[in-house]
């Protein structure tokens, strides 16, 4: 839940600028819907990597993984879980 809130807030304030964050639903298509373009991706990916302390493989940055808040949350959760599993070893 916290992941989506943070990402929603970042997108609303930095990428979509004037759009109020409540208009971004969990399933709102951000990239394929034209809300975030290729330039917006620069900021979004930088935010995700810095805020959640994760790193993306270039293959992961595509519309299949980052098109909606739901997808973004799933990917971040997977990365965090993988990091925790690695730390526990």
């Amino acid at each position, binding site marked *: 839940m916290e992941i989506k809130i943070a990402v929603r807030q970042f997108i609303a304030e930095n990428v979509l600028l004037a759009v109020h964050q409540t208009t971004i639903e969990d399933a709102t298509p951000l990239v394929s819907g034209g809300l975030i373009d*290729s330039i917006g*991706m*620069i*900021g979004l990916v*930088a935010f995700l990597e810095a805020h959640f302390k994760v790193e993306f493989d270039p293959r992961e*940055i595509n*519309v299949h993984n980052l098109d909606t808040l739901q997808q973004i949350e799933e990917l971040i959760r997977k990365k965090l879980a993988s990091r925790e599993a690695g730390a526990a070893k």
Partner: protein
Amino acid sequence: MYGLEMYGPKMYGHEMPDHEPTNMNVRIASAAYAVPPDGETVEAVLERERDRVRTTLAPLSPQARQKAAEGLGLSRVRVCGSQQPYDLVREAAAAAITDAGITGPDINLILDYSTFPGENSQSLSLAHKLSADLGAETSMNLSFKAGGCGALHLAIKTALGWMRTDETIRTALLVTGDTAPAGNRSLLPVTVQGDAGSAVILRREGPEGPLLLGVEAMTLGHLHDAIALVKTNGHLEIKVDALRIENEVMPIYYLNLYRLVQKVLAASSLSLHDVDHFIYSNISRRDRDGFRRMVGLPEGGLSEGGLALTPMAEYGHTFASDLVINYVHLRREGRIRPGQLLLFASAGIGFMWGVTLARA
């Protein structure tokens, strides 16, 4: 205002080792290009290739299909008639050699990075044929095919590698000559291709020309077939996977370019504010606009550094020759002054991204 600069250098993917050029004194001694005299309107190209264009764009949404043909900013393309790309390369190389004040035998290394040297190309390697024709009898010759319009950076990086490991290599000639396979000028939703040849001469301890400060390149092999070359009925065909371009290439297109730009600048303790001229590809007006936004220039800002001077509307997208063409035009217009910082950037099929930094 450089709004994205808060996101500092950060890289991933298949990168090449960095910083090697900074401890060598290598200059861009000269550059030249050649285009064939014959031309064709982009409208005529798209009409002639309408079935191919329709098939390519079919998987896209109606909105994306409409967008594909808008904002190209290309009116005409130059097309090889009786000439071959090699003829253009030879012409450009001769001009670059004269401009650099050298002769053929002075050349120690010839790198040919043509992506589409022509189906009827009779030589095993343009570099070898050029070596013979220019009288560069002792030059090391290498042809490689990679990177499309980003390949200039690969060629520069490769030349620097040779110079670093072989003291005898002091002058390198980098060439590309490209022509679209018959019936394949449209690369929509990306661009429309024109034919050109170009040449760049790099000189170690050269007396003049912009000093290379750094070059960065990265490749991502998993996108090799987003734009692929296939042989159909014995002829080369360019297959553009519009969906993959839309879904997999575009989300990282400027991201990777931006990160390379940041990296090459950071390596020289410089920032985007220090760049005087951005020299970028002529893929389309909307792509140039994307790059302008990426580097944080105001609307029309890239015009100062090249768009107004580039003949992209007349030549179309000429793959890796774009950067050479735009650089030559900047020089011809007397826009490049001593001490100014030049940033060359481009990305191309493969996929690959590249950035080169030089001080005039």
